[in-house]
């Protein structure tokens, strides 16, 4: 596990280099602190070897607004800072939705909402089949939970006893359908779910580090855009 100093100002600076996708700016910045804590304190990863077999797997299901994601990956050293200003430009590796075949450290290509959680369930099953103790962590948005495929996987994961799966929901209040309280809804389906302040690094780290005997969910509430 990493124990890096969480240099939020540096990640904000890096994210600001990735311009050109202003329509997704709010979405991007809502994930920033959770991503910073995950990559700085929680996930086992090796930026010098993105395919390291012992790594934890992270899937950004909410693929839109990936500026913060790219900033965090660059901060950790998966790719150089000078890639960031190329964001969304012709010839760049960094599009408005991440492509695992183009960006080191990206586990799954995402963008169409509702795909990441079923994928993560499969990754968790596969890790279990290998006898590996790594985790699969997947991040969705609250509005993304409108997609029915998420609820298929939400029903399934507890049934499969996937203790190596963690769902992070960034709740920035963007869902048209009122899902509150999301963590209680998830708990009904059998998840170990808790709600934390999505800007509180200590609370995020504690929640994201916790492991139980079934799938975990951390609902990170974010109501400010910066």
């Amino acid at each position, binding site marked *: 596990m990493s124990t890096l100093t969480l240099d939020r100002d540096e990640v904000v600076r890096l994210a600001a280099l990735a311009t050109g996708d202003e329509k997704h700016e709010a979405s991007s910045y809502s994930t920033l602190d959770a991503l910073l804590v995950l990559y700085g304190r929680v996930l086992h990863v090796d930026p010098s070897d993105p395919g390291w077999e012992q790594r934890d797997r992270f899937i950004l299901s909410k693929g839109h607004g990936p500026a913060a994601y790219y900033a965090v990956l660059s901060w950790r050293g998966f790719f150089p800072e000078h890639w960031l200003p190329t964001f969304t430009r012709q010839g760049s590796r960094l599009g408005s939705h991440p492509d695992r075949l183009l960006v080191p450290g990206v586990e*799954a*290509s995402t963008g169409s909402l509702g795909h990441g959680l*079923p994928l993560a*369930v499969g*990754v968790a099953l596969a890790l279990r*089949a290998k006898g590996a103790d790594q985790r699969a962590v997947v991040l969705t948005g609250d509005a993304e939970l409108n997609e029915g495929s998420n609820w298929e996987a939400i029903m*399934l994961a507890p049934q499969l006893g996937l203790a190596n799966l963690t769902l992070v929901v960034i709740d920035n209040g963007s869902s048209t359908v009122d899902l509150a309280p999301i963590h209680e809804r998830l708990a009904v389906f059998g998840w170990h779910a808790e709600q934390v302040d999505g800007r509180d690094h200590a609370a995020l780290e504690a929640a994201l580090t916790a492991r139980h005997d079934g799938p975990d969910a951390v609902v990170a509430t974010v109501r400010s855009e910066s």
Partner: protein
Amino acid sequence: MIAMRAQAIDTVADLFERDPRVAVVLAEISLERFAPVFARDPARAVNVGIMEQTMVGVAAGYALEGFHPVIHTITPFVAERGLEQLKLDFGNQELGVLVIGVGGSYDYGSEGTTHHSPGDVQALLTIPATQVLVPGVAAEADRLVRDTYANDRITYLRTQIVTNREARPVELGRLLVERRGSRATVIAVGPMLDRTLAATADMDVTVLYATTLNPFDADTLGRELAGDDVVVVEPFFAGTLAAPVSEALRDRPTRLHFVGVPRAVIRDYGTAEQLDHVLGLDAAGIHRQIASAIG
């Protein structure tokens, strides 16, 4: 004679036993036949319930971790309902999966329109590099599954109830020459072969047998081309193979004709054989259509 679907499942069970990288993800369908894989290693076999989109996504998770997933259900529920998952989770990410569909076109004739899928192959061919296999009998399904299960691309195996009588020595990506003639070329796809041979028994035509639709064997078609007319007899929507056949013949002046499932909602009920007759896809109907096409 073992059914094509049962054979495909048994072949997967055998591969599951031999290759620890094979994983099976199901959505309630064919659980009994797949029982040996659950007994062998439940960590690589999962029934997700009636969740076809999640079946595809979970399988892609296995593929991301280096497994060779196999998924299976009634054709429209994977080829159409799960199409975006197949496109994005597998196609765009260059991951492999073997998709075994059962009930192609109107095999579940008594179930009505919700269970029909004559557009399955056309839909799946919109995903680049997807391999499409349409065997005519169980033994051919066995051969094609063994050749493709670990090819790291989307491979769709279309199984049907009505089959040919005898297996041919099929090869992946190859057209077989069944008969040589001079007036026209007829391409029979999978289970359409026996009835096409019967329909053309009194015609001076070349008959080619197709079980791999993508990649399409342009070399054999070009070499064996007879006459100026090419008729494709398809077990799915007529014209599904228009693109690959046209591409294969781009330098040859030919008239193309397609005999297949009419592009309309099928409101009738009955067995697959009965609907074949109603839709003009039994031997008599195929004879009529080929005769009309080539004059």
